[in-house]
């Protein structure tokens, strides 16, 4: 049996009366790309915020790389990288400045941060634009920088929260290739999206979330086989069958 790198048990979070995450449990194996699917408002982002230690859960337990997020948040932070859904970067700075800054924040010294920044910019196909101001980049380029920043410090677990929202096919394919490359190098990835075909292409296993709960969890093929031939149905069909409404409501 493969080693479980992230274990989530009965996670709960409410905002006032609204239960954003309601008893979520799952585990991710080391080196796995795990998809968390669901429509907007399903609770995916709230789950990632709790797993990345920036939002305290109401209850439940999370262990990442053997460290509890409650007891050892510092240790957890040292092994994770987060790519938020928003473009969480400084548009008035250059791509290189952004990456060096976040690298320093992740504990790298100046030289290391610079070296890693150039390495990741090359990975993203943005070396020529390293010194360009981010505000002048296209949406796709900003998304790639957003992802590259998450790689600073060489995390062992990467949280990617809808990293391909609103970008061109070229940038999307670049991101897919990057993610597969990271997996091949042994990185564990939690990937949230509401694009079903994306999850189908990238993830070994997916959990479908709705209204703060995981309603099913399995490999894409197994999920599709629950309602028909895996070659003829899509994950969206699975979701519609399970929830009775469209993913893009």
């Amino acid at each position: 049996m493969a080693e479980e790198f992230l274990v989530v048990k009965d996670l709960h979070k409410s905002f006032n009366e609204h239960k954003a995450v309601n008893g979520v449990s799952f585990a991710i194996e080391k080196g796995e790309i795990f998809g968390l699917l669901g429509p907007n408002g399903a609770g995916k982002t709230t789950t990632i915020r709790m797993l990345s230690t920036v939002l305290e859960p109401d209850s439940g337990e999370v262990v990442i790389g053997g460290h509890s997020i409650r007891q050892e948040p510092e240790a957890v932070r040292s092994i994770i990288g987060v790519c938020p859904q928003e473009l969480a970067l400084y548009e008035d700075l250059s791509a290189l400045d952004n990456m060096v800054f976040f690298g320093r924040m992740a504990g790298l010294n100046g030289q290391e941060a610079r070296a890693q920044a150039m390495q990741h910019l090359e990975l993203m196909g943005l070396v020529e634009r390293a010194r360009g101001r981010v505000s002048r980049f296209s949406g796709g380029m900003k998304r790639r920088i957003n992802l590259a920043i998450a790689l600073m410090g060489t995390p062992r677990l990467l949280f990617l929260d809808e990293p391909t929202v609103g970008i061109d096919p070229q940038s999307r394919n670049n991101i897919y290739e990057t993610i597969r490359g990271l997996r091949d190098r042994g990185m564990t990835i939690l990937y949230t999206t509401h694009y079903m075909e994306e999850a189908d292409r990238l993830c070994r296993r997916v959990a479908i979330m709705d209204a703060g709960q995981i309603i099913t969890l399995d490999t894409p093929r197994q999920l599709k086989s629950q309602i028909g031939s895996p070659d003829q149905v899509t994950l969206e069909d699975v979701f519609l069958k399970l929830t009775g409404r469209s993913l893009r409501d």
Partner: protein
Amino acid sequence: MLQLTHIWLIAVKDLKIFVRDRAAVFFFIVFPFIFIIMFNFLLSGIGGEDERLELHLVTREPAGGLSHQIIGAMTKAEESQLAPGQPKMVRDKDYAEARRAVEAEEMPGFIAFPADFTEKLSTGSGTRLEVVANAGNTNYRAALSGVAGAIAAEVGADRVIVEASIALMVRGGVIPPDEASINQAVRSIMDRLMAGGAGGEESAFIDFATQKVGEVEAENPANFVIPGYLVMFVFFAAAVAAEAIVRERQNRTLERLLATSVRRESILGGVFTGTVIRGLVQIVIFWTLGILAFRVDLGLAPAAVFILSFLMVIMSAAFSVMLATLARTQRSAGSLAVITALVLAPLGGCWWPSFLYPQWLQDIAKITPHAWANDGFNKVMVFGADFSAAVPDMLALAVFAAIFGFIAVWRFRTSAV
């Protein structure tokens, strides 16, 4: 140590962003000097000269009358002989012409001696000086009334002297008790009382004593314009920085930092330090240009000026972070920043000196940190006070900074939800 490094890196990052924003650099560094040059010019008249008051005197008596002697004693040939602040007495020859000049508002007013002035005084029946002044010029009218009152009092006192002297002379047999002899003795005594006055020398009859408190020097308007605009723009820049903090919160940049090894306190410290450094850069530029280009005088206590500036920067940075914690959206932070900066600046005496305000407005202005800062600067740089005079203003700024800082630390959020 790591947390200090994080604070420093966040501060440096904020400075880089500020420097690369040319509009912000122009608005908070260059733009204030356009205001300073303009207001320096507009306010250059304040305290800049000794505007000597001219008081006009005219008599309707024929030549030889006592009023001619009084006017002669009061007027001086050379203005240069007058002490600072001493009014200049001007003799006007024609009553009708003087009256016409007042009605035409060519002259603010005058004091007129009646045609029977000497006769009435001699007979003891009393006389009346006439004060003719423009109705709208209350200050000038008050000055003329004061001088007229002084003349009346002095002449009254002299009359007592003359009467007592005549009585003694008659009783002692010095002069015979007939009218002609008494009148001649009266004239003789009056002449002696008035002696020396008509010659342009200091009169023994009416004397003005002016207490000289320092030299009358032209006040450099930069001494209150530059501190005023420094206070305004340091606060304004800091307040507007709150918008950037809210933007970082909304696009989850601050949260992203938390997901690394950065602590909430380091983010708060970094944001605060960045705002403080930017403010320090502003005050260094303000004072350097102020001293070199505008020749501002830091008074007897330059240290007080620098401490006040530093406290102003600290207070403004604390206000910035507080504003960012209270505002929910970027737009509300920006609006609150502009409103607070533009309301507090004139109220606190940044646009024009608050010591020109009525007392009640000065009292209200004390609710603003701007007023305390400007008050401290004015004390030291305009009124020549020493360090200790500015200490209450420093303490007030420190209290404002502590209050804003406490709210900022208590309420600081790194995420929008």
